[in-house]
C-alpha cells in the first residue's frame, strides 16, 4: 500500500455521479411499463405441439408488408391473413416444410427469417465457420512463433562453427553434468 496517494486525484469525484446516474437508469429501465401494439388472435389447437408449431412458424415467417417484423409481432392485414392460413394448414395436417413451401410459392425468400440453404447462401451459413477457422489458423501461427517452433537455426560460417565446437568441447570437459538445460 505504498503508492496510495489518498484522494486518487479526483477519480472518485468523477465516478460517483456517473455511477449514480447509471444505477438510476438501470433501475428505471427495469421498472418501465411496456407498450405494444400486438394483435391478439385466439386460435384453437388440438394439441400443444400444434400450438408450439404455430408459434415457431409465426415467429420465423416475416410479415411481407411491415418494416421488419415477424408474423407474430405484426398487426398488419396480410400478417393476420397469413397467421390464419398457418393455423388452417396446421389443422389440416400439413408439415412445416409444406407450409413453408406454400409461403415460398407466394412470397419468395423474403418471407423467411431463416435464410434457406442454397448455393447463394452458402457463404452466409458457412461464413462464421470460415472466420473461425481463419482466426484459429492465425492464432496457431502466433502460438508457434511464441514457442519458436519454426525458428530457423542461425547460419554461421565454418570458421565460427569450428570455434563454437571447440568451446563446447571445453565446456563438456570442465563441467560434466553441469548442464543448464
Amino acid at each position, binding site marked *: 500500500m505504498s503508492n496510495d496517494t489518498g484522494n486518487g486525484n479526483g477519480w472518485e469525484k468523477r465516478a460517483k455521479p456517473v455511477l449514480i446516474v447509471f444505477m438510476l437508469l438501470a433501475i428505471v429501465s427495469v421498472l418501465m411499463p411496456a407498450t405494444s401494439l400486438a394483435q391478439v388472435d385466439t386460435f384453437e389447437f388440438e394439441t400443444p405441439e400444434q400450438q408450439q408449431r404455430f408459434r415457431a412458424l409465426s415467429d420465423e415467417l416475416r410479415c411481407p*408488408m411491415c418494416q421488419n417484423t415477424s408474423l407474430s409481432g405484426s398487426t398488419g*392485414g*396480410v400478417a393476420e*391473413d397469413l397467421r*390464419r*392460413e398457418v393455423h388452417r394448414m396446421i389443422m389440416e395436417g400439413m408439415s412445416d416444410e409444406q407450409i413453408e413451401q406454400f409461403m415460398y*410459392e*407466394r*412470397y*419468395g425468400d423474403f418471407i423467411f427469417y431463416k435464410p434457406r440453404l442454397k448455393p447463394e447462401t452458402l457463404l452466409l451459413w458457412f461464413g462464421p465457420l470460415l472466420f473461425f477457422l481463419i482466426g484459429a489458423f492465425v492464432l496457431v501461427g502466433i502460438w508457434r512463433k511464441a514457442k519458436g517452433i519454426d525458428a530457423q537455426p542461425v547460419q554461421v560460417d565454418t570458421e565460427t562453427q569450428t570455434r563454437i565446437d571447440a568451446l563446447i568441447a571445453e565446456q563438456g570437459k570442465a563441467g560434466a553434468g553441469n548442464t543448464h538445460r
Partner: protein
Amino acid sequence: MNRSLAFLPVVAFLVLAVVMWRGLYLDSKELPSMLIDKPMPAFDKLTVDGQAVDNDSLPTEPFLLNVWGSYCLPCLIEHPTFMRLSESAEIPIVGVNYRDQKALALDWLEENGNPYAFSILDEPGRFGIDLGVYGAPETYLVDSKGVIRYRHVSVLDETVWREVFEPAIAELRAQEAAQ
C-alpha cells in the same frame, strides 16, 4: 508487418462505403412477385355483384388485374387512369376487391365509376394470398393464356402506364400475334 498491410483497413472501409452507398439506392420495399411467368391461381368465387366466376371467366386477351379496396387512398388516386383505359377499351381490366366489405365496395364503384369487367370479391383476402399480394393497390399484367407476366406495386398513374405498361402490353400483343 509491412506498410502495405496497414492500408488494408482503409481499403476495406472504402469498399464497404461503396457497397453501402449503392445499398441506399437499392433499398426497395417492393417484393418481386413469385408468380411471374406462372399461371393465375385457380379461383372459383363470386364477384361484388354476386355473379359466380372462375378462371374461364377471364378475358382471352392480355388484361390487367387490379387489386383494390374502398379503404385504399392510392387506389382512388390511380382510379382515373383505369377509368380512361376502360372507356377507351384499351385493355380489359379485372378487379380483385381485397379485404373490403361488399357494401362499401359497391358504394365506392357507384361513386367513382366502375372500370372493371368484373371484380372478384375477396373479403378474407385468401385469393390475395394466392396471388402474393401484400397490400393494395397492385396491378398484374396477364396474357391471353392466363399467365402472369408482370406485377406493379403501388399507384398505377399515367406515367407508370406510359413508361412501363404501354410498352409491355405492346410487346405482349406482338408476341401473341406472331404465334
